[in-house]
């Protein structure tokens, strides 16, 4: 059964489906509907919603709830995520699972509230202090806002690590059909959690390891975990990529514009395809290298100053030229704009 749902609301629908028990957050456009939906729905299914005094407090409330073994989440946009970075580093350091949604808006500073993809570095590369990784999923539709939130909860628990749903103002604000299926939540045991019971009395949630050897051992453990995730969890989608001469690369809302651009190009007999990373960390480098190897060139399109571009270039490792096209400030290119760009780049390549 399909329901027309807003992307931001779909996040909470997914979260409820995944058995999310608590939401702590602070309002910010264009993410506020997530908090509002959490406030409306979570308490009705016995969950907790609390509007914190700041994003700093919110992420630390998430830390507390995660320590106690709850499925817990928060959501915000750029400026709020900047404030949460210390907490995210602590969560990763203490190996606490949680879901964090970033509905990206224009930056830097107060910027504006229109869509950008300028938080890629902050979310994918870390952003907080220290050696850690976030698992990062990039939905492109309302359906995926729900589905990836569910997946993010599963991955977070599986790896005992923060999982980020990285999206943008458009996907958050738009409405599309959403289909949900009731399923039984399979939450893993959390014997490490601190629950105020005799069994969990010895448990300790911490990220401090004063001795260099101890901290090194802890980091080796995290590294091994990240390596495993990198091997198992990279996800992507391709469209007409098999015989493509030029491969468009983009994630989130951009991937949809690119899809339309591919269709337009194909109508003109141009062999153009799409590669869309679904997980931004782990980045689907291997798949992109393989798909890219068959092409004459890649065109990476982003709503940022070239943040994913670095990963795209690393993936193909100089074997294929990687062109770049971007819009920033909240402008989203139209498919026609991409098409024109493509034609001019093709002319230059020829």
């Amino acid at each position: 059964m399909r329901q027309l749902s807003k992307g931001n609301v779909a996040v909470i629908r997914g979260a409820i489906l995944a058995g999310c028990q608590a939401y702590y957050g602070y309002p910010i456009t264009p993410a506020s509907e997530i908090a509002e939906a959490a406030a409306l729905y979570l308490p009705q299914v016995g969950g907790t919603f609390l509007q914190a005094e700041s994003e700093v407090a919110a992420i630390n409330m998430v830390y507390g709830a995660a320590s106690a073994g709850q499925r817990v989440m928060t959501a915000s946009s750029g400026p709020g995520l900047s404030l949460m970075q210390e907490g995210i580093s602590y969560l990763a350091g203490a190996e606490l699972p949680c879901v964090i949604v970033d509905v990206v808006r224009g930056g830097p500073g107060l910027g504006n509230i229109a869509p950008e993809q300028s938080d890629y570095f902050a979310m994918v590369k870390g952003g907080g202090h220290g050696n850690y990784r976030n698992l990062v999923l990039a939905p492109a539709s309302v359906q995926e806002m729900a589905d990836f939130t569910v997946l993010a909860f599963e991955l977070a628990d599986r790896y005992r690590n923060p999982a980020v749903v990285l999206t943008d103002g458009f996907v958050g604000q738009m409405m599309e059909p959403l289909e949900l299926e009731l399923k039984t939540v399979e939450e893993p045991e959390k014997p490490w959690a601190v629950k105020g019971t005799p069994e969990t009395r010895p448990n300790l949630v911490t990220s401090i390891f004063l001795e260099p050897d101890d901290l090194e051992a802890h980091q080796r453990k995290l590294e091994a975990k990240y390596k495993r995730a990198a091997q198992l969890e990279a996800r992507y989608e391709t469209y007409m990529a098999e015989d493509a001469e030029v491969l468009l690369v983009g994630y989130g809302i951009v991937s949809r514009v690119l899809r339309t651009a591919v269709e337009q190009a194909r109508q003109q007999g141009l062999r153009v395809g799409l590669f869309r990373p679904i997980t931004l960390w782990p980045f689907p480098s291997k798949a992109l290298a393989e798909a890219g190897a068959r092409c004459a060139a890649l065109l990476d399109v982003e709503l940022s100053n070239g943040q994913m571009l670095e990963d795209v270039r690393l993936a193909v490792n100089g074997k294929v030229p990687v062109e770049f096209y971007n819009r920033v400030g909240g402008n989203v290119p139209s498919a026609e704009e991409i098409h024109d760009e493509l034609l001019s780049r093709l002319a230059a390549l020829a």
Partner: protein
Amino acid sequence: MVENEESVLAEPEYELLHSRSEVFYDRFERKSELKHQTHYCPGCGHGIAHKLVAEALEDLGLQDRTIFVSPVGCSVFAYYYFDLGNVQVAHGRAPAAATGVKRACPDKIVIAYQGDGDLAAIGTAEIIHAANRGEHIAVFFVNNAIYGMTGGQMAPTTLVGQTSTTSPWGRRPVNEGFPLHMSELLATLEAPAYIERVALSDNKHIMGARRAVRRALELQREGAGFTFVEILSPCPTIWNMQPVEARRWVAEKMIATFPLNVFRDRKPTIPEGKNPPQRSVAEVLGLEEAGGKITLAAQAVARPQHHLKKLSIKIAGFGGQGVLLLGQLLAEMGMREGLEVSWLPSYGPEMRSGSAHCHVCLAQERIGSPLISHPDVLIAMNELSLRKFAPQVAEDGLIFYNREQLPDNFAAPQARVFCLPATEIADHLGAGKVANVVLLGALLEETECLASETAVAVLETKVRNPQLLELDRQALAAGRQFVDKEAHNDAISQSDGFAY
């Protein structure tokens, strides 16, 4: 030369407590190197405060149901000593983290233990808001007027004139302000159940502290609410004093600045408010209705092959004209007729200035970009929108303009324009706000993109007020009739004379 401790001790009207609390570990299990008995300095107040907390937990039998939230500061390693589940948190955030823990484990005892830099500087917001919410946590606030762990920088509680590595000439209120009185500050709030300031200056006062710590935890056991004990505490190392001298400094200097008092001891009356209804996940997600009624979407018209391949519509006007709602209606209708749909609103600064627009895509195939640069249809609900967006409309597109005729000196676009005074028609019906539905009727009649029965079905689910629903029905019909009539008269013309 160490002074005789007896000289500062008051008369021994206290019990002797030499034994180790059960709440402490036998051995420092959580400490990697066993070189030291404790990581605290000799004469440090943290050790005494730990002991008081441990004893109270033991006496009250709370060890198995207590969660200890340890801060950043010298007591970051509180978990070396307490045989309790422990959550170590970021600098200043213990009250926030404790909130998350407590809400997850409402029947457990949650303790946040913090220093003065932690609680009164970097974590000021967290403690005030946790107190204001009346979180059911016990906060033990160890005020030693200095940053211990980082080596003696100024704290918000550093006394006027007191030197520190970052106030080398003594704290000057003109530069650093006055010492912050957290207990007094929190006592201005409605919710806290218990606030007391105690001192670890001498054994008599330590006994007072012992009573306060126990009271704070007893109240937790009773579920009384937020309890807070500020403990004035010696830091001999940073103060550069002998332990006994440091205790005397607490008694003479600190208490003078921070008077001991019970600032609050009453169970707060906190109104319950309206409780949210409890429903099943399926119900909340709209997957089934209460009482097993069939959901409305199940009655949707099944159209495996829709006649419409693809249509993009842009709707624009003033905020309050139902621009976004009209788009949602169209998207919902398309969805019910089995199409793929997307609705993308304008949001942001332009909404503030009163304009709104949205993009609706209807298609048989998966929709790529939901952003429309050249819409097939523009519904312009005001002149501004017409002027702004008409040039974007595809050559073979269609524009619906909410007026009897096009404005003067308006360069006719390539697309066909259909003028209808929807607001006037709606006003006639009795509510200008259904103008958007009048336009919907016109769109459906003119383009036949979707069925008007679907429009009625969607309106029936969206509009709860029966009078308004009737108005909407009339508005839809009026829009359709207008198109019908105009087509009959063959009178739809553009300023350039083009008629169809």
